[in-house]
């Protein structure tokens, strides 16, 4: 009946102000491009900042601005995704050097 889709569309359309929505789309596009560039060595976990989990992560990682990225223990706050790419590449190099360990994790608040 399309009800679910309409409710979902309504919620998604009004979930964020326009500029944040544009920023979110850029972030999504970047996150989707990761497997193409780093294969399956990168695992992404997206955390909504305005949620209970977001609160806990912000508290533990001392984030005051968003988007915030945590790549294998290293932090970056901002929208320059090329800098996150550099962090990921560095983390992967370190992992390779340390031989076989679990895949690195990239997280965004």
């Amino acid at each position, binding site marked *: 009946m399309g009800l679910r889709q309409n409710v979902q569309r309504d919620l998604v359309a009004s979930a964020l102000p326009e500029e944040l929505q544009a920023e979110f789309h850029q972030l999504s596009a970047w996150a989707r491009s990761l497997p193409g560039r780093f294969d399956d060595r990168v695992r992404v976990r997206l955390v909504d900042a*305005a949620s209970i989990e977001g609160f806990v992560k912000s508290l533990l990682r001392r984030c005051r601005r968003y988007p915030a990225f945590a790549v294998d223990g290293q932090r970056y706050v901002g929208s320059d995704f090329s800098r996150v790419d550099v962090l990921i590449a560095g983390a992967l190099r370190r992992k390779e050097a340390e031989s076989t360990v679990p895949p690195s994790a990239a997280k965004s608040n």
Partner: protein
Amino acid sequence: MNTLLAVIIGALTVYLAYTLYARRIDRRVIQSDPKRATPATLYMDGVDFMPTNRNILFGYHFKSIAAAGPIIGAIVAASLWGWLPAIIWLILGVSFIGWASDYSAIVISVRNDGNSLSAIAHKLVSPRTRTVLFVFIFFYLLLVAGAFVGIMATVLESQPKTQFGVIVLTAMGLLLGQMLYRWRTGLVGATVLTVGITMLAILAGGWSEGIFGALNAGLNNLTGGAPIVTYFDPMLAGFKGAEAKIMPSLLFWALAICAFCYAGSVLPIWRMAQPVVYVGFWITATAMFLGLLGAAVAGFVKPEVAQFVIPAFRGWNPQLGPSGIMPLWPMLFVTIACGAISGWHALFGAVGTARQIENEADMLPVGGGSMLTEFLLALLALLAVAVGAKGAPVAAFATGLGGFISVWGVPIQYATSLAFAAFIVIVLVVTQLLFRVMRVTLSEWLGDVIPPVRNQHVASLVSIALAILLVLTGTWVYLWQLFGGANQLMAALSLLLVTVWLASVGKNWLFAGLPAIFMYVTTIAALLVTAYNIYFNVYQPNMAAGRMVPVVGSGLMVLVALLLVAAAIMIGIDGWRAFQRYRRRPAPAPKPAAARA
């Protein structure tokens, strides 16, 4: 009976139902396969279909299903039949029916490409079933909205000390939205500020009581103390029924709630609905966490708040009004809804959670586990009212929960204020989202026939006007039972659909089929009893007295009850035919499950 014993019984129920029954069904009947690809992994689109970690999904699902139902149902049932029938139904209902309904609704969707119940009904049963379900859902939402607005308006009007906290909660929600999404403030600081101020306002409610009491009195003086609506209320005079009045102050607070919901419905989510829910979560979580732990240890620390003081059993058919009947069967089973079994859970599980299941092994902990957790919430509400027993049902709940919270050293007046606020916040945050869904539903349903309802303001105002009309009948208890009947009927229809599906794939259908039959018969009987009660206890006395608002409202309620019964009978007949068809000749075997990458 004391609270510690009840908490132990509750914990044992959860453990036994999950390990001895639910897991067995999951392994032997459903045969959940962690290697089978789920719709979330097959059709991932980042919005609707999204594989999600089981712990996060559990929290998301629980937050979506746990609203006012488990709390209010237990309160009303305990006040009508006593705490013993209520606790027995909670335990048996969740153990044999509730978890099975929630879990199987997710299973059927996951095994059918993430389709909704109506789409599966279209495929498995008949095309008309889908249309009937659609109409059913709108009236179901209307009943929930009417019941929730009614109880909130009554609490706000009768408890002036709660009003300041709710106003500040709204203001802080708006402020939080501005801080997070416009000023881009850090979440931790914004949370501390907004939640802290809201909490202080709630605790300071006692100091503002005089001001809001004077506001109520001033509003009532506008009509010279005359009521807006006079109606017959079967709950008064020791359930014998008496004349009751809706004063301007109650209408004012009902309209204030509707204004809040209207804003929640038409403003962007980020501006109001989401931040208000976020701030409200901290208030309710604090109250519930302190309350549940307090109930467990109260017997040792503060025995006077740990003993049950209401009667264990009040009778099989307590009198409710001069002509009303309230037989334990079927009415108890629709009065206590969400804590034992709920159609909303199935509806939401099938269209929301099922599309985020990452692994079939997660279906039971997320679906069944959430239902069992909600049972604990209902148990807490029952304990609170069983030990509280002062005043009206909601006041008894707040007194009881306040007593549990006071175990931790919080002064009782502050603890009770927090409990009242927690109750209102739980209902309020759900109601604002409810009107948003109603608005979209109405627009989708009637938009082609009546183009103006495509406008979000028109659709919202129509939904609100219908809900207010139900509130003005004054017969809240029947409205609640009508909602309970629709809700439980939705669960029965979901179980019926699961039964048809199990038969179609040649699996043992008894774990869903037997509860489906019980709930189907029980809820249809309950809807008929409710229609009878409304007609003889509300419609007729008000008609005789020439009171048009309660007459129109109660007439609408009788009509909705009969409409729901007719819809259920049509779905039942179609379902039975489909079931017989599949039993004679099961559907062709499905394609082998795609392997997970």
